């Protein structure tokens, strides 16, 4: 059990590192997928350890959330590419104050 939880933790940290490091927004979405998947892995492992079905039920809910998030996120990425012609997450700073914009 401990080594399986270790695997889930390492996968989650991989996804977190990818989310923090990459600026390409498609890679950020993929890192979110890795993190959600590792959380589901932890649920399955715990459910199989205590021989309950709740872990698998929770994984189905995680799957639902992940599917909804990916569809909306990819639609947002399409809109962003349509407007800005880039996938750089730092390029979307129109909400920032214009005074700060001059300093950058």
């Amino acid at each position, binding site marked *: 059990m401990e080594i*399986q939880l*270790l695997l889930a933790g390492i996968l989650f940290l991989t996804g977190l590192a990818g989310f923090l490091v990459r600026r390409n927004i498609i890679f950020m979405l993929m890192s979110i997928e890795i993190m959600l998947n590792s959380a589901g892995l932890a649920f399955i492992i715990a459910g199989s*350890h205590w021989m309950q079905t709740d872990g*698998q039920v929770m994984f189905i809910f995680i799957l639902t959330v992940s*599917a909804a998030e990916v569809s909306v996120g990819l639609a947002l990425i399409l809109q962003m590419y349509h407007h800005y012609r880039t996938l750089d997450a730092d390029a979307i700073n129109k909400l920032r104050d214009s005074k700060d914009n001059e300093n950058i």
Partner: protein
Amino acid sequence: MNTIFIIAGTVAIISSLMSITNRNAIHALLFLILSLLSISIIFYISGAPFIAALEVIVYAGAIMVLFIFVVMMLNIGQQEEFEHKWLKPGMWIVPGILATVLLVIFIYVLKEYHFEEKVTVVIGPKAVATSLFSSYLIAVELAAILLLAGIIGAYHLGRQRKKVIHRFLVRAPGKKQPSGSHEIKAN
């Protein structure tokens, strides 16, 4: 079981790392699919065959196809230069050492706390469905509402619209227009 787990887990970790450090989006997606497939093997050997099938069908089948579809639609090949300085190997030495220290501590803590060993029991789809539709029924309906919201949101965001900019905003001094493909009718 343990050998299979170690092999599949190693493949999962390595392919996840390759996926987040790859420059090419399609290659990264293929590595991500590999990681999902190896995690599905882990689900299978820890007694959840239904979830293993769902992982392959929904994650590796549907969600990754959505990703690949968007990547191919946007025609992203080699990435632009904006994140080259983030991916230099020299930057990773100190955070890598610190993370390795934390990982060693994590392994030590998990080794110290002994879980009692149990035989793997296969929990089939029937038990999962019984639990899902009896005690988690309200959560199933909430998930349905969430999926409906996702469908509506994706449809609303994915629509191509003519953007209407007010004529006072068209030629604001010193402001650059957002570079889209919209034709602004000059009044």
